[in-house]
């Protein structure tokens, strides 16, 4: 089935911040899996599903996001007929509609300009490799107003958890935020499909009421007035709702099955090209259970860790159970365990940092420790 839908990616999430990791960047731009950012998975899913117009709604801190997305060429979205639209906050001076400075005007314009029948809306706190064709098909067949993706992964993934309840006909009849027992519930997986006309209508009303922040929660809360149905996702998904879940989702990448599910040969995940030289494992290094990226130069001992591009690890340094972002320099003899180190940091000789699985130490971007 050919998807007749435009895509909309919400780069920020009202309820999700990853401490220092989202200080300098939007949630969608948070690095993940060694050489990607979270948005790469969502964008690639959309492109692989045949979606040809993708808008990225950015609320703040979108410099690194824009730098990463560029013209959209890495996802083949810089074409005559395949386009990427970045929708930063919009200062609308025309008096055409309600609030002239509504942030939603840019979004409204984007959706108005599409000629597709539907819109696929995705949050940036779930990583998966999925085709949206099946949920789209289910949406068309059910005739519902909105179809929401959910799963019962039973994982402990931290707040926010949006649990959805459905009646015997499958129509949504309740919404719980951070319910006491989320492990057994059917929990929203950050993706909805809605018809473009209905979405335009809702956006128009929001602007008329002076609301200027859109999230999928707004849509789901309309379950009384609209026919919202669910679609269960049975494949692999990794939720990123907090530093602890970012850490545990990353560590799952060290399991072969997770890697195989996320990086399938039939549905490729695209990212910005960097032309970095290959990684070098130098004399005296010990490397075990490691996902590492081009440009790394390893002399020390590294284990159970994820290295982004161009990480340097000095002699006799020991890095375990850690996530090290791009261009970090770990000098000789440093000891790190359960640590997340953001871009461009330098960890000097003599430093020893230890966190816990639930509370990894996070070092902010550019720090010299």
């Amino acid at each position, binding site marked *: 089935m050919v998807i007749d839908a435009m895509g909309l990616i919400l780069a920020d999430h009202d309820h999700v911040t990853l401490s220092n990791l989202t200080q300098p960047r939007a949630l969608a731009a948070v690095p993940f899996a*060694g*050489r990607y950012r979270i948005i790469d998975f969502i964008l690639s899913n959309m492109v692989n599903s045949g979606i040809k117009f993708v808008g990225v709604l950015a609320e703040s801190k979108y410099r690194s996001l824009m730098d990463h997305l560029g013209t959209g060429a890495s996802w083949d979205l810089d074409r005559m007929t395949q386009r990427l639209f970045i929708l930063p906050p919009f200062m609308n001076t025309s008096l055409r509609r309600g609030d002239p400075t509504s942030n939603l005007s840019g979004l409204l314009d984007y959706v108005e300009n599409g000629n597709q029948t539907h819109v696929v809306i995705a949050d940036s706190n779930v990583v998966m490799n999925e085709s949206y064709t099946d949920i789209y098909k289910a949406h068309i067949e059910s005739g519902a107003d909105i179809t929401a993706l959910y799963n019962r992964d039973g994982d402990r993934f931290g707040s926010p958890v949006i649990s959805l309840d459905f009646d015997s006909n499958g129509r949504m009849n309740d919404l719980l935020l951070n319910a006491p027992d989320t492990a057994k519930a059917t929990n929203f997986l950050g993706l909805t499909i809605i018809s473009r006309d209905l979405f335009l209508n809702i956006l128009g009303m929001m602007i008329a009421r002076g609301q200027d922040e859109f999230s999928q929660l707004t849509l789901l809360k309309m379950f009384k007035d609209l026919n919202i149905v669910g679609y269960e996702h049975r494949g692999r998904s990794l939720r990123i709702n907090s530093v602890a879940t970012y850490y545990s989702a990353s560590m799952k990448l060290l399991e072969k099955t997770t890697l195989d599910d996320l990086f399938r*040969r039939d549905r490729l995940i695209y990212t910005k090209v960097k032309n970095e030289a*290959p*990684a070098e494992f130098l004399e005296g290094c010990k490397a075990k259970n490691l996902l590492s990226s081009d440009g790394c130069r390893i002399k020390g001992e590294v284990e159970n860790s994820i290295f982004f591009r161009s990480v340097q690890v000095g002699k006799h340094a020991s890095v375990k159970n850690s996530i090290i972002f791009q261009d970090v320099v770990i000098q000789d003899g440093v000891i790190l365990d359960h640590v997340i180190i953001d871009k461009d940091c330098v960890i000097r000789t003599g430093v020893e940092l230890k966190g816990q699985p639930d509370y990894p130490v996070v070092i902010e971007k550019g720090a010299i420790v």
Partner: protein
Amino acid sequence: MGRQETVAMILAGGQGTRLGVLTEHVAKPAVPFGGRYRIIDFPLSNCTNSGIETVGVLTQYEPLELNRYIGNGHSWDLDRNNGGTYILPPYQSITGSDWYKGTANAIYQNISFIDRFNPDFVLILSGDHVYKMDYSKMIRQHQETNADATIAVIEVPWEETHRFGIMNTDEEANIIEFDEKPEHAKNNLASMGTYCFSWPVLKNYLILDEHDKESENDFGKNIISAMLADKQSLKAYTFNGYWKDVGTIYSLWESNMDLLDRPEDINLHDDSWRIYSRNPIRPSHYIGPDAVMDRVSVTDGAVIYGSAIHSMLSDSVFIEEGATVKDSFLMPGVVVKKGSNLNRCIVGMNTVIGENVQVGPEVEGGIDFYHDERVCTEGITVFEQNLIINDDIKFAANSMVYAPTADDGFNEIVIGLSELELMTEV
């Protein structure tokens, strides 16, 4: 098309016979190198980094893979509105059709292409050399000295002068004599096969050369010699840095090992002079819980469960548990199954080495069916691309393992061909 001050022409049509089966289906410039590159990435990236915007790539032998790889030049930023990359195969015209008879003839056949840009200078580059060179410095010297031709030279050890075209120069760097592979060299400045010509002068000599029935239509032998005889102004431009003609199995192996042993010589991490390539769309590489990584270069999509020692591993290589790869260069997509030991090997793209296969100079009683010392020297064994090698085979060193021809059929050593990988690169 606008005028371009300089047009670069990359000679990429040669077969590279001394690389044996590695160039059976691929032109030499498209042979993988250094984990995530093809040899032609070096001259192409040098052009981009030198500010040269128009590049003609002359192809002839097995051009499919090379053409596919270069595409529209996008990966090297050479997909430009003005100029860009052009693949230039031989063509048919009203007066007939000709293969490129020699390096000079290849340029001669493309005079009208170059004329379209009305350039002052034409750079002639080789598509099969590994080096980082700022051509703009050479062009500047060419301009400042008002030379008709400037030839890049590099100092080579005296004992190796017999392998090179040696340029004899006076104290002002004027080239006074050209010695092709001299037995007793008077100088140790070797031509790198990189030339800068003033276009009107070169064009004239190309036409004269074409009319000379005796000529072999070769740049070194014919064009340079003719210009010297006519007392044209030929200058040497001395290049300092790493430069290698990866023309033989040994030099291909050695230059990959150089990247491991002396990475600073051609520093691929240098931000000011990136070597661009088509990037495989693969996740980061994964090193397994029992892996051994000792002096290894590795890139996207590689998965290592076994041991890798002093080796160059390209993208999407898979080494199973209990397999050992030592002093070897594995090209993209190679699979080494458990229990196998590879020592001093070059393995072509997507070849699958079965279980308990033993290769290397230390292996005793290896089959010598594929033994070929004309091509494979110094104990190095080469596997052609896309082979499936049977389990439990021992190979004598200096073997060149190739796919059977249609008549022979598969044997108990090469039991099939691996599936053609879909091209997933950006």
